[in-house]
């Protein structure tokens, strides 16, 4: 079994279900740093992080040594192993409070209830909810500012922005490659609009074949449409899906299967709002680049 990835679970299951309500209720407020002015006057010494993405950002901006609590889903960087756990998919607010944090960093979408409870107890909370790569860079800056490491935050955010820019330049004017990103093979769950994956595919000179299937997040995508779209690259996130595409008679004639371009990738670098999204971009660029060669 691979390490669990919790952002993936939620994006796959609940984005399609709860999208409309969610957008209406927590669109913008999640992104603005909640009360950084109140926290900026002193640098926090005990930080609790409530999602894998925020944990990765905290370590990337140099606040990792002050992180006292994480979730059991937070598996990167390896140093998180030794930190106190405050829950997994659901957060134990009691445990958070017991760690006496002077800052809690959370994902506005994944941790909605926990954020509400922690705030009501008077503990400062900074939330992020990035919807695209530029907002991931902004989220890095927001968290860095709250931790008093703005300098390093700007550097990490700058790395993300320059990676995005260089991808855009590299792939400009190249022939488009049709890509299917499946988080599950059957029934088929695929990335629609407003996912990092969709944006990354477009950046790297690909066309996401399931993009029209939904406005937000991951959707139950018609397998007929997927076969008819004839993707040249199929990305999967687990072994059962990989086997399915290679073995199923329905996919025999698909260009991706014929050219053995069905590739298993680590979902965390594609789905988590963290600086490692750059790794995902580079992997995707290499995969799409080699598909362009064989076109």
């Amino acid at each position, binding site marked *: 079994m691979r390490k669990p990835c919790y952002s993936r679970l939620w994006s796959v299951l609940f984005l399609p279900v709860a999208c409309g309500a969610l957008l209406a209720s927590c669109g913008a407020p999640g992104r603005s740093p909640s009360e950084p002015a109140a926290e900026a006057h002193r640098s926090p010494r005990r930080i609790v992080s409530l999602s894998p993405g925020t944990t990765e950002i905290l370590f990337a901006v140099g606040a990792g040594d002050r992180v006292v609590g994480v979730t059991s889903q937070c598996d990167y960087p390896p140093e998180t192993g030794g930190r106190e756990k405050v829950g997994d998919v659901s957060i134990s607010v009691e445990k958070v409070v017991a760690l006496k944090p002077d800052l809690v960093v959370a994902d506005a979408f994944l941790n909605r209830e926990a954020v509400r409870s922690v705030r009501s107890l008077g503990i400062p909370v900074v939330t992020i909810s990035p919807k695209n790569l530029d907002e991931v860079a902004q989220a890095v800056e927001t968290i860095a500012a709250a931790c008093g490491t703005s300098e390093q935050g700007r550097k990490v955010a700058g790395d993300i922005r320059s990676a995005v820019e260089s991808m855009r330049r590299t792939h400009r004017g190249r022939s488009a490659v049709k890509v299917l990103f499946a*988080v599950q093979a059957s029934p088929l769950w695929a990335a629609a609009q407003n996912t990092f994956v969709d944006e990354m595919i477009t950046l790297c000179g690909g066309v996401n074949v399931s993009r029209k299937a939904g406005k937000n997040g991951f959707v139950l995508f018609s397998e007929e*449409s997927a076969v008819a779209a004839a993707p040249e690259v199929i990305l999967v996130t687990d072994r*059962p899906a990989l086997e399915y595409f290679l*073995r199923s008679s*329905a996919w025999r004639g698909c260009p991706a299967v014929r050219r053995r371009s069905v590739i298993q990738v680590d979902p965390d670098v594609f789905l988590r709002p963290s600086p490692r999204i750059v790794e995902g971009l580079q992997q995707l660029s290499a995969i799409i680049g080699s598909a362009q060669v064989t076109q």
Partner: protein
Amino acid sequence: MKTRAALRTRLTLAAAVPACLLVVCFFAGLWTGAVGVGPMEALGQVASHLTGRAGPETSIIWDLRLPRILLAAVVGAVLAAGGAAMQGLLGNPLAEPYTAGVSSGCVLGASLAVILGLDSVAGGWPVPAAAFLTGLAAVLLVLALARRSGKLDVNTFLLAGIIVGAFFWAVTTFVLSLAREDIARIFMWLAGSFAAPYPWDYLKMASVIGLLCLAGLFWNARDLNAFALGEDQARSLGVEPERLKAMVILLTTLGTAACVSAAGVIGFAGLIVPHGMRRVFGPDHRPLLVSSALCGACLLVLADALARSLAPPREVPVGVITSIVGAPVFLWILSRGRA
């Protein structure tokens, strides 16, 4: 003699009318979907496969659409006929094929298998196999609880089914809370879907077991009629009540377990179809079982066609459609029944 002729007429009607409907539904299913394939082209693709002239190119109709339609038909037939038999046997209008706890048992087995990573072993076969076995285990547990001194008490059976079902759901919920990234793969069993991996293989499994169980239920139809008169009456007519109870429950459960293993839990089909057919053809189990099976097949083929074509290229879980459509229809049948 007159009654015999009348029965024959009713049986013919109960078989012929839904069968014609099923043919219509079959073509409706074949010609709808996210990808537009012309009617003649669709038939041509099926024909070329049947005559062995098909090329190596992928056929959306043959590889994706046709096995789904056939699987939906088999599952619908088994669930609806199973529901009719259970309602007759237990004398309870709320009985359905899932009454004995088979669905929650299946879902628990499937989720455990997925969590243990068995869906990447041997083409994923351990998952439906585990679902089937735990479904049967749940029913055997219910039967064991409901047996008193060699007799099966119907009321205890109903209660035991509810309790065991609730217990298995609780364990499943616990398993789901551990699941994290596998939750989407377990979701299919909860919501029901005919987009099975390797649909032809799943179809073979479900249809062999399901159709055998259907035949077994038809075989017991007349005994169910006698049983409806009460256990003592049934005995005087030469029907052994305990044997009949065990037979009907096991046949229904085996078939239902095969269906749930292939397509997940699909609600309402086994509940509304028998009620509707009873209103049309009366309480006699011979026309009732035949018409329920055929109409159940129609219902799920149509529901799956809707699931595939409501919001293309998205799909809607078929269990959602049967429940959303099923609940109001069931209420309507009930209100008509009172009038």
